[in-house]
């Protein structure tokens, strides 16, 4: 099908975009990459009366590291993040996660901010953001604020953004040089939406004891979730195969799965266990200089 008619605006700055949002409120929709919005418009599941195209706002497209933190503009294309030498070197989990999004034609156009505000709980960028302790900067008519993932993602396809807010920046703290990490997902075909996605980071002391474990799971709850109790099980312990299996079981119990067309709730839960286990093993092997 073809989209309904809409009025089209092309603001040249963040201020101009917010002014338009403030004027049109719920009738308006922001378009950046459009890789989630345009399919919905083609099916007429979305019928915005006003489309505010932010692609001309070049100040929103950047990847930079100020101090140790990574800062990326909301309009940065997924493919640019995936291929950025800086990100591949220092935040490899993010590059790897993005490589699972659709196909190159989707990632060439799709944006970092677009994936976050779409808030699909199985999506790769939201799942990674939770593992990376990233934060998002939002600008609205009354100024700017910074949100943690748990303040930002409310439920399926819903964030805490107000109708006149614009997501402008994503910041990710530095990671230690020595770390183990993994990003894995289960999908029926390459490029499909994930049934389960898992992002893992492991940091250890010199003695081999786990200092911190982060386990973020996508597709198993209304928002991406951290398996906090499983993380607690691992931290301060010497990691063994047995402990990894226990932590994976615990992580599966921290899911809040629902059945859908692609998988039953039980299957999703069990796959969360399997993928957390494999992810922890991969991250642990990496720390031990292995495969």
């Amino acid at each position, binding site marked *: *099908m*073809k*989209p*309904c*008619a*809409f*009025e*089209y605006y092309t603001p040249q700055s963040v201020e101009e975009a917010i002014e338009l949002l403030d004027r049109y409120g719920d009738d308006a929709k922001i378009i950046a990459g*459009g*890789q989630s919005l*345009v*399919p919905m418009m*083609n*099916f007429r599941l979305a019928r915005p009366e006003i*489309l505010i*195209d932010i*692609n001309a706002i070049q100040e929103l497209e950047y990847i930079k590291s100020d101090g140790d933190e990574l800062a990326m503009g909301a309009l940065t294309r997924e*493919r640019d993040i995936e291929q950025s030498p800086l990100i591949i070197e220092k935040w490899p989990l993010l590059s790897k996660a993005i490589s699972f999004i*659709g*196909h*190159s*034609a*989707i990632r*060439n*156009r799709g944006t970092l901010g677009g994936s976050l505000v779409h808030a699909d709980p199985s999506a790769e960028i939201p799942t990674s953001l939770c593992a990376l302790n990233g934060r998002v900067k939002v600008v609205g008519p009354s100024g700017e604020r910074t949100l943690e993932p748990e303040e930002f993602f409310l439920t399926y396809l819903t964030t805490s953004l107000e109708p006149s807010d614009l997501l402008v920046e994503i910041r990710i703290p530095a990671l230690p040089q020595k770390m183990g990490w993994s990003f894995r997902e289960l999908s029926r*075909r*390459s*490029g499909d939406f994930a049934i389960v996605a898992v992002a893992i980071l492991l940091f250890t002391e010199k003695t081999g004891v786990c200092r911190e474990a982060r386990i973020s799971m996508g597709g198993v709850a209304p928002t991406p979730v951290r398996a906090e109790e499983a993380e607690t099980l691992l931290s301060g312990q010497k990691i063994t195969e047995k402990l990894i299996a226990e932590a994976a079981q615990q992580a599966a119990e921290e899911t809040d799965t629902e059945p859908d067309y692609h998988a039953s709730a039980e299957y999703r839960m069990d796959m969360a266990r399997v993928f957390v286990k494999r992810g922890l093993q991969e991250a642990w092997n990496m720390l031990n200089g292995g495969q």
Partner: protein
Amino acid sequence: MTDSRRIMVKVNGVDYERLVEPRRLLVDFLRDDLELIGTHIGCEHGICGSCTVLFNGRVVRSCLMFAVQADGADIMTVEGLAEGQQLHPIQTAFQEKHGLQCGFCTPGMLMSAYEFLNENSNPSAEEVRKNMSGVLCRCTGYKQVVDSVMEAAEQMRNK
């Protein structure tokens, strides 16, 4: 009814200036307004890959963009591959290795291979398979597609 906008685009090296309604999809603009019907429309929601074109040097789904967004852009469609009667090596390889049967997905296959081989001139079959997975084909079973892209890579390296 919303106001139409005047846009200027370069497609396959030719400049066009047209009035378009904002809701006009890029793929419909290419096919209906410019009569470049080499680009095909399949699923209209970014899954099948038939409508893949090069947009400022990178592949995009032309069913997931509006023509107004292409104002000032440089686009290449499947019609831009051959030089006169001289087929592009990717086209020759698809012909020789039977990389198509009905031909519906072929414009998407060729454009995806074009960007991919420009970035990676010596890919493994596995890399080809992963990259070409963005375009669905119901005829070939993909083996011939992979063979075609591998053959094209070799021909382009030896050129």
